[in-house]
């Protein structure tokens, strides 16, 4: 187990290194730069700024300098947000996004799993049809539509249009974020539970005289939950780091915003910082998923 985790950490290190190299290269290939704007500064000012941030050096040298800093835990300054470091900005935005995202994922699990189970147990009945149709909508409607609709309807009625100043303000962003994962989890559970219900051990469980509740929760659910765990790892990483759309619509100072704006601004250290942060989170979640797998299913061996 410990050996396995160490192995995974080493692999993670290599992955992160590759991600950093590819991102850096792509970033440099994109035309434009951080100092281009409508009111372009004079050539001498631009040259001075570039010299200040080391952008006048050859790309390889810039990359090496950057990576040296990263290894020391220094992600550099933000070019656009003067006076703030990349780490500052990430640690200011992440807790806000993580709070909404965390609640959204919990909601998705708590709602999605029972819905999926009901659909499976009532296969072909009206409950199943309703859940299937609803989950198809949940998967296919993009979040900017759900978020905008919520904003226009409830947001304006209850004056909850921006910020997170009260608990009630969390409701709409959380619902917008939870919509897709709820629908997805419900579908996953329905599919795997239908599969599990045909298994011989389910017949054994019923032949023991166990009640439907015990059969469902003890014997069926644990066997059908693995696909959901697989999905939850990356989903959690993406949701915790925030959604650009939802944060824009509800005016929330989260991290999701920074991903997109850093690219639009060509804020090179910010692009690198946010990308590496998200990658690290995804890799960590995947290791966590593997460990949870092992706990849920004793047949899984690490070696």
């Amino acid at each position, binding site marked *: 187990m410990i050996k396995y985790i160490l192995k995974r950490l080493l692999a993670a290190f290599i992955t992160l290194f590759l991600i950093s190299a590819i991102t850096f290269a792509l970033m440099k290939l994109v035309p434009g730069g951080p100092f281009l704007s409508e009111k372009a500064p004079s050539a001498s000012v631009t040259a001075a700024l570039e010299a200040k941030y080391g952008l006048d050096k050859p790309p390889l040298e810039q990359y090496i300098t950057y990576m040296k800093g990263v290894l020391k835990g220094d992600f550099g300054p933000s070019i656009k947000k003067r006076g703030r470091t990349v780490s500052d900005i990430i640690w200011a935005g992440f807790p806000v996004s993580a709070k909404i995202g965390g609640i959204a994922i919990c909601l998705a699990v708590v709602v999605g799993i029972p819905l999926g189970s009901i659909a499976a147990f009532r296969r072909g009945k009206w409950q199943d049809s309703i859940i299937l149709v609803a989950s198809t909508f949940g998967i296919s409607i993009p979040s900017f539509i759900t978020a905008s609709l919520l904003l226009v309807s409830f947001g304006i009625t209850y004056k909850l249009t921006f910020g997170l100043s009260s608990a009630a303000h969390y409701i709409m962003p959380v619902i917008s974020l939870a919509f897709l994962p709820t629908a997805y989890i419900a579908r996953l559970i329905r599919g795997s539970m239908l599969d599990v219900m045909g298994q*011989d051990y389910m017949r*054994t469980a019923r032949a023991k005289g166990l009640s439907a509740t015990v059969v469902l929760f003890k014997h069926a659910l644990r*066997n059908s939950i693995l696909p959901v765990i697989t999905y939850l790892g990356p989903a959690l990483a993406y949701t915790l780091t925030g959604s650009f759309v939802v944060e824009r619509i509800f005016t929330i100072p989260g991290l999701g915003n920074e991903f997109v704006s850093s690219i639009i601004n060509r804020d090179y250290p910010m692009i690198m910082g946010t990308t590496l942060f998200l990658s690290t989170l995804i890799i960590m979640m995947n290791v966590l998923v593997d460990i949870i797998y092992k706990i*849920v299913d004793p*047949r899984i061996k690490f070696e």
Partner: protein
Amino acid sequence: MSKTFLEIKNESVSFFTPAGEVKAVNDITLTMGEGEVLGIVGESGSGKSVTAYSLIGLIANPGRIVSGSISFMGNDIHLASEKEMRKLRGNEISMIFQDPMTSLNPLYTIGNQICEVITLHTNKTKKEAKERAISLLSEVGINEPERRMKQYPHELSGGMRQRVMIAIALACEPKLLIADEPTTALDVTIQAQILELMSDLQKARGMSIILITHDLGVVATMCEKIAVMYAGGIVEFGTADDVFYRTAHEYTKGLLSSVPSLHTTEHGRLKPIPGVPVDVLNLPAGCRFAPRCESCMKICLKEMPPITFISDNHYSSCWLLHHPNGQNMSTDI
């Protein structure tokens, strides 16, 4: 003679599939005494397992019990509520299945799965249930029971898993054990061990067993009474001796002659029953075996043969046995 322990009367079970009604079990009547071992034989799809599932109320959708009654120790099972049935299952009537490899939940330890049924049906504490589980495991011939308790099904062999299934089935001292092809998925030496174990346990506890199988050798060694099923109906019922030595029905005769014996010569061929099993969606009007029967008569194709008693405990439904004057013909036709 033992009192009427189990009585199945005119039981019919159908599966309502999109293709039409499949009459899996068609008007069967059967009685069984306490402490008896009853064998139900027949080929795949003859309704053996469905009969067993209807006994413990586990007919799955789209199956439905169409008519009939089952009386178990004086209580009609079809009238029992789901809650009453749950008290019966695993407690008074328990069941073991064909494939031990998949019949245990892969995510729980052996101990957990045995204790589960004990704590459900008795007032035993967790600790007492654990002790009982350990003694059950050693009773079914599993070595190092304490260690096995903590193991998962995938760590055990097929034979061991079937022993665990038997331990689960016996946990609450059932009156009736239904064994649905318990040895089909096991290799021959393990088969013999499992059958011997079941036989020993049956004698020690005086419980009744319904053994469902397509293996005539298995019923011959284990069962006192045998019911032969074909296409959802019982074609012949009698003691093992009646069925094997005073065979009445043409289908049973066919089955028996298709079994290899020590007397079969090296180049001798087994004699299979000609034709294919009937299409259960379109059952023939007359005897369901008629299209494959070598002694088929005109009436066989038109009307269902009635039950004819050859002796007190031996009956068969075949027109050949039926005498127009209402008297039964002798068996040596």
